[in-house]
């Protein structure tokens, strides 16, 4: 599907005839008000997959111009790895590898203490067990032989957050699966307006993290299901940490895969909480709206391009639809129209695109689906095209359905 979209965009751009140009905010990156730095280069994870995606997600917020600080490979000389953190409003940690030089560690500590923003992403909380201040910054960490000497577990029990000092390993996860994320701080700027519960797409559910947990607020938890190899506890998923004047957003989700699909990172819940958490860490506020297709209690939602699709991209995805296929692409179209129908100019553009589609090479089933959408939203402008489609055996019934709905008065 991704290929299809890309090739469609390429074609359209070459033809020079694209309309409804992708208005993705990344086009305005030059005007982005804040600067972010992703620290990467070593990880037990696929950092070569995750770092470009994180960069794209942050840039798509329209808020960040993003640079990448890539460390030497593992085992190589680290002495010259000295990112200048203070040039940035935000430092995003996608790093789990060799120790940084002492000077870099000190610079990072003073950057955060002095009011810098930090995002701790997934396995970054596996890093640097021995670096005391780092662990205060991430709040909770896992693996690297962490245990009760590193700090308590932090869990949601009986309606509150509990710090549990019981002995045990730090860091585990069961089998990957989609899981439900539950908001625990609905009034926090990062969480405000998000559903109380939402279904995160297939991912590792980090459990048994332990650490100093000072100035730590758990924003959201997830039930770590023992049937999936989990801990039978509500484990922290999204957190904030205070360190000096610095603000830290810690997200444990978003495991990157080695192959082409990235369910955890495509999840709209991961993307949007990352964007909101990044803005909050950088500024203390969140100005971004929650998108209409945020996942819900029982409903996953993914952005295959790590951003919402443009209308033309959605239409391109419909072309091969046959009855009995999944409605995935159809629902994208329905949702787009429903949430962008202003009853005016904006809708008129959508209708023009729909009518053009109806006269193109898409399958009859996809056209019949669009005819049903037009029966709901369509205007008189659609009628001449519907007339034509009434002459086609494969589309005549739904064309009639649509034109009948558009023209007849039903209120009595």
């Amino acid at each position: 599907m991704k290929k299809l979209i890309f090739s469609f965009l390429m074609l359209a751009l070459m033809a020079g005839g694209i309309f409804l140009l992708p208005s993705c905010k990344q086009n305005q990156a030059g005007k982005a008000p804040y600067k972010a730095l992703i620290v990467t280069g070593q990880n037990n994870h696929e950092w070569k997959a995750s770092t470009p995606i994180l960069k794209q997600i942050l840039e798509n917020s329209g808020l960040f111009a993003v640079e990448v600080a890539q460390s030497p490979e593992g085992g190589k000389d680290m002495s010259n790895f000295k990112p200048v953190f203070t040039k940035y409003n935000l430092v995003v940690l996608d790093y789990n590898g060799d120790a940084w030089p002492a000077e870099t560690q000190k610079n990072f500590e003073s950057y955060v203490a002095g009011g810098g923003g930090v995002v701790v992403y997934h396995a970054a909380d596996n890093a640097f067990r021995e670096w005391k201040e780092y662990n205060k910054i991430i709040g909770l960490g896992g693996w690297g032989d962490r245990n009760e000497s590193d700090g308590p577990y932090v869990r949601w029990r009986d309606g509150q957050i509990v710090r549990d000092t019981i002995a045990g390993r730090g860091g585990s996860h069961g089998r990957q699966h989609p899981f439900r994320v539950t908001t625990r701080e609905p009034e926090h700027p990062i969480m405000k307006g998000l559903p109380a519960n939402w279904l995160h797409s297939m991912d590792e559910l980090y459990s048994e993290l332990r650490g100093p947990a000072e100035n730590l607020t758990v924003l959201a938890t997830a039930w770590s299901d023992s049937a999936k190899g989990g801990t039978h506890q509500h484990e922290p998923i999204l957190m904030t940490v205070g360190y000096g004047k610095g603000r830290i957003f810690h997200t444990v989700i978003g495991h990157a895969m080695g192959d082409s699909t990235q369910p955890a990172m495509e999840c709209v819940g991961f993307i949007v909480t990352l964007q909101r958490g990044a803005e909050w860490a950088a500024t203390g506020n969140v100005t971004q709206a929650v998108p209409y297709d945020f996942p819900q209690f029982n409903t996953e939602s993914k952005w295959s391009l790590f951003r919402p699709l443009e209308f033309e991209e959605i239409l391109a995805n419909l072309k091969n639809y046959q009855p009995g296929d999944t409605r995935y692409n159809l629902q994208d179209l329905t949702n787009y129209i429903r949430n962008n129908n202003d009853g005016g100019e904006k809708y008129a553009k959508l209708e023009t695109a729909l009518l053009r589609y109806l006269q193109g090479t898409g399958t009859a089933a996809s056209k019949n689906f669009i005819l049903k959408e037009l029966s709901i939203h369509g205007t008189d402008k659609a009628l001449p095209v519907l007339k034509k489609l009434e002459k086609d055996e494969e589309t005549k019934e739904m064309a009639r359905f649509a034109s009948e709905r558009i023209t007849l008065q039903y209120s009595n």
Partner: protein
Amino acid sequence: MSEPKKIDRRNFFGKMAVGAGAAITLPYIIPSSALGKDGAVAPSNRVVMGLIGSGSMGTGDMHEFMGKPDVQMVAACDVDKQHRESAKAAMDAKYGNSDARIYSDYREFLAQEKIDAVILALPDQWHGIIAVAAANAKLDIYGQKPLARTIWEGKKIIEAVEKNNVIWQTGSWQRSEAHFHRACELVINGRIGKVSFVEVGLPDGSPTYSAHPVQPVPEGLDWDMWLGPAPSAPYRGVCHWDWRWILDYSGGQLTDWAGHHIDIAHWGLGLDRTGPIEIDARGVYPRDGIFDVPVEYSIHAKYANGIEMHYANARQVPHGMGVCWYGDKGWIHVDRGERLFASDPKILEEKIGDNEIKLYRSLNHTQNLIDCIRSREETITPCQVAHRSISAALLGEISMLTGRKIKWNPDTQEIIDDPMASRLLRRPFRTPWKLEGN
């Protein structure tokens, strides 16, 4: 029993005499229990019934009515051969004969069967057309909820029922349960004070992610007739239950359950013959699979008297399934399971005085229909009330489908200032289907 007005015309034996005609060639064989011995009801006093739609719901309804000594079940109609034959087998087993008649086309059923009453248990896209035809055939009707797939069809059913002076009962049986009745009487008599807010929890939708490839129509199923007025669609194995998750046939859990809990919410406030004035709804639709009804839904409805109601899938309301009325002196929550809950348990012990509002009382839902067929009185769940229960949900569906807040005039039953949303008050029927008289 008081002298029934219509029963003579519909007398079982009378019909044998005048109505048998050429179509019925076999004589009726009346088992000994039909002769009025041993406390059995004499045939002349029985209500003779048939069934259109003998799937799982229709079969359950058939057994419910067939269990009554004063009902005789004589015919079934279904587009699925297996379903109609198993209905016949059940009737024949019950009466110890082989007389039950079966049909695949409701038009033939209505033309041939000179019965008193009919059970309608059909997928929603068929409700309007067949209910109007059955009323025009002068049959009293037990109609499964929801009343209709669209508000326009609901209005047409009411017109036909009133014009033909037939008795209608909707399958909103919760009204005949003592604890629902009790909850509504407490609320309507002010035991929780002035009510300002009501929460209605309906079942959560369950997304089905499995693929449903197009496949051959099963032997004995008339798929085109099953679709009826709904748009043509290839058979994808979705017919006998899962049709409820496709908008061409149903509005999902929301419209399935409006006739239960929204119906009760209205009843407790005396709002069951009117409707909201403003509806703002949001639905979440499945992104995988072939089903397109909302799996999560949340409808905020304002009524002219200032009351606000929130209809949503149960996870989105604090008390979960059921109805919770909030007044300035407390709240009452009712759901299935015979127990009421209240902010203060003492509320539930309150007596309703002689001079207070007494709601229609029925202790046995199906018996209430049989009683009303004889008395010609209105049932506990007439179509006019069922129409308002489902209208509230259908307006929510329109708001979800358009993505807009809807303004509604419950008196004229018109959407205000939104011609596009108004279109969704009705669905075009596939050729050649029409609602009789339209």
